[in-house]
Structures are given as structure tokens and as C-alpha cells.
């Protein structure tokens, strides 16, 4: 992405008493970036700072080459003068206006004459497939329809920066699937920069060109979906992508993690991560021998259904999740509290340096 000039270039620093957001964001024109993080990680604060609904404590915010917020100058562009469009989590469609007038609201405020604004709004409603719903008030729209009106309303002002706050979170599972597909189509067409704030990894993976992962107000990892899913750098990311992740000291062909040396296929030294899939973990009643495997004793802490398999949570020298088939579980007579041996082949592990 660095080849393309950034339409949005920001270093967002916001102090909120006990919490501090400190995140750099660059988004190119036409690029969709997902800001992914757990609850309370600062995603919403970042979105509000970008929208001008909360001022920066320091840092800077440039959009389309113009300073929006620069506490050290001080420069400040209020929300209504920023070239932004926001799709709020609960949409916030004006309840007293029809779908058409909701979409026409932005163009009207940008000086478009009433008739023309309504024509634009009608075209937008048509694009999101709601031309038949122009006269409806928001309370007579379904969740999916309201989401599409909110998207049309945000896009109707042709914003340089489109901000989406958990755009699919308020929808039921079936509607979410359809709406996600629709949304992808519209985000691809949007010529400006797009920031998608979400805690749902699936939304991020499907909709975004690039992921920025934020925890405790800081960016912990960023990159395209393939890089992030292959080489998670925090427990949160590892859980998101369903990997076991450990940090330790690499010594040639092994990484020492909390007293267990995991033999890996990747030669490495220094601080390192080791990641492997839960399905790569094999469980045994007795200590297995003879094969080039990592083995360690563990205790079963919990068993959950996971797709067609069972996911076994293990405690021991290192916590680990293992996926086994129902048949294997029955054969091994697995139950919580039981002592087992866990084993992972070196070839199934993936080690990479911890220093970015």
C-alpha cells in the first residue's frame, strides 16, 4: 500500500483519563482498511477522532492533504466541514424523515438544491436496491434495509473518508451474510478511503484490503489478511485466526517457551513466535516415542464442540487448544481433569521472529 499516496494520514493520540489511544493510520484512495480489536481497545475512539466528534490530544490528522486536527498548531476542522461519511453501528437514521430524505440530508447540507438532492438520493437508494422504499420512515424498515439506507446516506456526500462502525453487528446471522456481500460490492466501488471498525474477524477478512489490529489503544499488528492469519503476533490475533501462539527464545531449531522446547522446522535465533493449528496437536494416553515430535504432559481443562470435531483445552507447562475427532475422543476416553500427552510434529509448527 505504501506505493499509493495516502488519502488519510493520521497519528491519533487521544488521552481519556486512564486510557490512551496512540495509533498511526494511513489509508490510500480506494483502499479499505479494517480496524480490528477487542471491546475497549480504542476502535470507537479512533473513529470518533477521525470524524471530529472527539479532538486529538496530540498527533495529527490529514485528509486529502489538508490538516483536519493538529493540536500543536492548533488547527481544527469541525465535523461538518470534514469530507467524511459515517455509517453508525445503530445506523442513526433520522426517525422523522423518510428513507429518501435521510439520504438527501447530506447533499442538501452540501448546498445541492432540494430537487437535485432528492434525485441523487433516489439514485443512491436504487443502487442499494431500495428504490421501492423511498417513502418509508426508518421504523418501517428491516435491519438490513436500514443498514443499506445508512450506507447510501453516508456515500451520498461522496466522502473522501468513509467510516463504518461495526456495520453488520446489529443484524441477525442470515441478513448479515447477504448484507456483507452487498457491502463488499459498494466498498469496492467507493473511490475514497474506507475505514471499517469491527471486532468480527470475518467482516474484516471479507471486506478489507488490509487489517490494522489494535489492542489497549495501540496498533499491535497490521498487514494483509494472509500475513496476519499466517503470523499472528498477539494472543488476541491468534485466537481470531484460530491458532495456538507462543512467544519464546529461539535457539537454532527450537524455541524455548516456559520450560518446554518446541522443535520447529524454521531455523531461527532470538525472540520468536511459534504458531500451530489446534488440529496439528495429537493427544495420547501414554507418552509417545520414536518420532521427531514435541511432546509434553497436559491436563484436560475443558471440551467443546467445534464444527465436526471436539476442541480440547489443555493446561500444563503451556496452555494449548487441540482439535480431535469424536471417534478419537471416544477411543481415548477423554474427560476433563484427565492427564494426557500432547504432541505436535515440528513440520506443523511455524516459527517467526518476534521483532517486527
Amino acid at each position, binding site marked *: 500500500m505504501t506505493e499509493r499516496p495516502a488519502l488519510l494520514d493520521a497519528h491519533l493520540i487521544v488521552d481519556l483519563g486512564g486510557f490512551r489511544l496512540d495509533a498511526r493510520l494511513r489509508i490510500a484512495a480506494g483502499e479499505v482498511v479494517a480496524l480490528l480489536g477487542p471491546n475497549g481497545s480504542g476502535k470507537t475512539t479512533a473513529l470518533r477522532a477521525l*470524524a*471530529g*466528534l472527539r479532538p486529538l490530544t496530540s498527533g495529527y490528522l490529514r485528509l486529502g492533504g489538508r490538516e483536519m486536527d493538529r493540536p500543536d498548531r492548533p488547527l481544527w476542522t*469541525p*465535523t*461538518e*466541514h*470534514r469530507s*467524511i*461519511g*459515517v455509517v*453508525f453501528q*445503530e445506523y*442513526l437514521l*433520522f*426517525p*422523522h424523515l423518510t428513507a429518501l430524505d435521510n439520504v438527501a*440530508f*447530506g447533499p442538501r*447540507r*452540501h448546498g445541492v438544491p432540494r430537487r437535485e438532492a432528492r434525485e441523487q438520493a433516489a439514485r443512491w437508494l436504487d443502487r442499494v436496491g431500495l428504490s421501492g422504499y423511498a417513502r418509508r420512515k426508518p421504523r418501517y424498515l428491516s435491519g438490513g434495509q436500514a443498514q443499506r439506507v445508512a450506507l447510501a*446516506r*453516508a456515500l451520498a*456526500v461522496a466522502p473522501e473518508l468513509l467510516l463504518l462502525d461495526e456495520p453488520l453487528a446489529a443484524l441477525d446471522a442470515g441478513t448479515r451474510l447477504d448484507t456483507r456481500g452487498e457491502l463488499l460490492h459498494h466498498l469496492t466501488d467507493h473511490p475514497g478511503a474506507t475505514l471499517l471498525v469491527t471486532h468480527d474477524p470475518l467482516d474484516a477478512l471479507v471486506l478489507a484490503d488490509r487489517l490494522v489490529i489494535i489492542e489497549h489503544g495501540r496498533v499491535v499488528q497490521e498487514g494483509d489478511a494472509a500475513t496476519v492469519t499466517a503470523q499472528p503476533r498477539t494472543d488476541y490475533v491468534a485466537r481470531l485466526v484460530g491458532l495456538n501462539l507462543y512467544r519464546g527464545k529461539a535457539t537454532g531449531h527450537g524455541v524455548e517457551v516456559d520450560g518446554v522446547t518446541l522443535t520447529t522446522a524454521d531455523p531461527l535465533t532470538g525472540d520468536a513466535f511459534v504458531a500451530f493449528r489446534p488440529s496439528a496437536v495429537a493427544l495420547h494416553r501414554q507418552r509417545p516415542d520414536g518420532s521427531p515430535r514435541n511432546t509434553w504432559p497436559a491436563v484436560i481443562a475443558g471440551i467443546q464442540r467445534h464444527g465436526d470435531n471436539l476442541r480440547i483445552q489443555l493446561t500444563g507447562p503451556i496452555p494449548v487448544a487441540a482439535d480431535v475427532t469424536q471417534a478419537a475422543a471416544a477411543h481415548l476416553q477423554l474427560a476433563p481433569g484427565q492427564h494426557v500427552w500432547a504432541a505436535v510434529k515440528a513440520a506443523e509448527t511455524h516459527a517467526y521472529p518476534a521483532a517486527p
Partner: protein
Amino acid sequence: MSVSAAPRRGTLRVPLGLLVPAVLGLAFLALPLAGLLLRAPWSTLPQRLAQPGVLTALRLSLQTATIATALCLLLGVPLAWLLARVEFPGRRVVRALVTVPLVLPPVVGGVALLLVFGRRGIVGRWLAGTFGITLPFSTAGVVLAEAFVAMPFLVIAVEGALRGADTRYEEAAATLGARRWTTFTHVTLPLVAPGITAGAVLCWARALGEFGATITFAGNFPGRTQTMPLAVYLALETDMKAAIVLSLILLTVSVAVLAALRDRWITSP
């Protein structure tokens, strides 16, 4: 609550400790109105209604109460917005000041108005000297007295509505390019419209019934400042039956207006 009697399924038993005072309270409120209806001179009602003074007082009452309400809306809604949305030093003091006319005896309000807007008052002298306007003992004075007493009802109702309104709609309007004034007129006002209507109705009803401040500040001149409550009070000294008739009219008109508004606006979701 008796333990022996099995309560009927699906019904909420009302404790006697609540039921008895509730019924007494209802009787206390309803009996005087019933008395008014029982003692009304129904046989001579048409002639009494046709008397010229009655209609004049009624018209004056309706006009002044409506103008006073309009004045309260014009000044009170922005004041309520300020109290609800802007953090400023002394906001608590301002809010307390707004509620003073609620607890002040209206006669005292009338005296206070005379001291400020009277011929010798701080503002009154300036108004008379510069524009030749004298407010006391005029119809405008009636409006002023009614507005003074009724405005707190509007401000409190609208402030409550504004506090209850979701400010995120205003943020959404800002992200779409709306300046604060446009946001206020196009988003905030429509959102709190039911609250404003309720406040305006309360305000109008209070203005219609205003007596103390009006008679103190505006006097009791038929056709100019004699509103219905003043006419009732005056009639009471000379002709009890006339007072009852005037009271009945006031009661009917206010109940009719409130009922009409309630159906049209207040109960809307």
C-alpha cells in the same frame, strides 16, 4: 393483603394501603368539579352566556394565553436547549432561577413585574421614554404576566425532552455536513417535538388560569385586561351564579383544548 383468600389468577392485587388514599385523592380532585356542575344555573345558562362581558373575557383569555405561549416558545425553547446542551459556569444557578416563578406566589410575581416593567421600573421607564410603550394595566401586560408565570413549565418540559433525546442523531447530522443551527432546526427540534408540544400545552393551561400576577400587574379592566379568572373573581362578589357559569366555560374550554391536543399530538409514539 389477606393470606386466606386465594388471589385470582393473572390479577394484580391492589394493597388497601394504596387503594384507599388513591380513591380519596380522586374524590378530592373530582368533587369540586362535580359541585360546579350540580350548582350551575342550567335553566338560565343560554341568557347568561349571551351576556356581552362573558364572550369578551373569554376571547381575551384565549388570545393572551396563546400569545403568552408563543412568547414562551420563542424564548423558552432556546433557554431549555442552553440548559440541556451547553456546559457553562453557573448553570445550576440559572436552572434554579428558571424554576423560581413556579414557587413564587403569583401576586409577588406581579409586584416584581411592576418593579421592573412599571412606569417607574428599570426597564419600564426606558420603554416609556424611548418607545412610548407602557406595559402595566394593558393587554400586553396581561401577556407578560402570564408568560412570566407559565414559562417555567415549558422550559422544564423541553429541557427534560432534550436531555432524553439521543444526541448521537445530532452527531450523525454533523457528519453529513449540518452546522449546529441546521442540526437544531432539522434534527433536534423534530426529535423533541412531542416534548415541546406537551410543554406548550402545560404552559398554555397555566397561562389561561393565571390570576395573581395578572391582577397585580395588569389590573382588572373589562375588555382590556379582564381575563376569565379575573371575571370569575369579580362575579363572585356580586353574582354567585354568574361566577359558576364563567367557571364552567373556562373548565369546558380548557378541557376541550387539552383533550383535542392530547389526541392529536401528545400520545403519538
